[in-house]
């Protein structure tokens, strides 16, 4: 669909959709992989205290709400024919990477709300967790730049 010109609001909506879905995807990976499959994280672990409980509840609500909103915005962008794959995937990875990095640095290390895993030496896990976040974030920014240089490849 290249017949119509993208309108000014379209790119912003595409970016917001990708960022929201990236945030939602990062939350979903945490719930599916680390809660359900690996059982490293739990519904409530006595170690993390009331602050961890509040941050868990907030993040759960935020990531799921972001997913629904991001899907609606994506549907609208596609309907208008202004979907651009590189920009959208760039925004998804940027959102997911930023969330993962923030989770690893602020929530795990600065606020000490919860940890990647319990009962083991954390150095390697922390490096992997935050490192993965930074890599995904960089990949997202690279795709966003690429999407700016070569627009309209949708």
């Amino acid at each position, binding site marked *: 669909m290249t017949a119509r010109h993208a309108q000014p609001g379209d790119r912003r909506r595409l970016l917001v959709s990708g960022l929201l879905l990236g945030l939602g995807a990062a939350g979903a990976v945490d719930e599916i992989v680390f809660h359900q499959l690996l059982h490293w994280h739990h519904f409530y672990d006595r170690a993390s205290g009331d602050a961890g409980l509040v941050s868990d509840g907030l993040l*759960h609500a935020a990531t799921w709400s972001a997913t629904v909103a991001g899907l609606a915005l994506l549907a609208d962008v596609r309907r208008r024919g202004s979907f651009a794959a590189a920009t959208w995937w760039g925004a998804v990875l940027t959102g997911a990477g930023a969330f993962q990095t923030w989770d690893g640095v602020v929530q795990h290390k600065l606020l000490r709300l919860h940890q990647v895993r319990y009962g083991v030496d954390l150095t390697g896990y922390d490096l992997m967790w935050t490192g993965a976040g930074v890599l995904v974030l960089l990949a997202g920014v690279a795709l966003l730049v690429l999407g700016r240089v070569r627009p309209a490849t949708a």
Partner: protein
Amino acid sequence: MSLPLGVVALPLTAAAAVYLVAALGSRRPWPAGRTACWLAGLACVGAAVSPAFAGHDLRVHMAAHLLLGMVAPVFLALARPVTLALRALPAARARRLGRVLRTPPVRVLSDPVVATALNIAGLWLLYGTGLLTAMLHSPSLHLLASAHVLLTGWLATAAVLGLEPSAHRRGVVVRALALAGGMAAHDVLAKALYAHPPADVAGAEAGAQLMYNGGTVVHLVVAALLWRQWYRSRATVRAAFPARLPG
């Protein structure tokens, strides 16, 4: 502790009858889906306060709580009773109802942020204090708390979905944020119940998880309804103003 049959059955039957009479007597045909939603919502209320959900087990209590405070309100909001009343009433009385809807108290209460805050405040009172234990032992407290959970849940859901005519409906972002805020408070409350279960109730951990997971599902259904409405409304807006509006 279940409620006396008449206290529940009479108002529910009356609510069903009044809605059916109004829907059948409406000048324009009233969509059957809305009538079905109204009856389904009333059925959820009836089930939630029936003896089937009595007892001191938090799992059973939470199942009733989800039906009464979350599932029933979604159905009741989708049934659009205010719209039906405005249509079915004689013109003079419909105008009077319209004026009442525009008065400051109603406008404040039907704001999605205020309505959600009221709903959450009631839940924190119920589960964060000794009220839950007291309620399980007193039929009148049970009736009062149930009515509060139902009415504020309904008000909050209706305010977020914004399906009824309103002088001041908030934009989709405010309504989505109010919903997300309510969901976050509900999640935190469920986890707090798990961590610090109230005295005198069994099944606290399973009950708290049911509250958390069930709450997530219903909140996501409401979010999907809200955003579907937005998606459809964008098409209408663009058809009306093809060139001017960017979004």
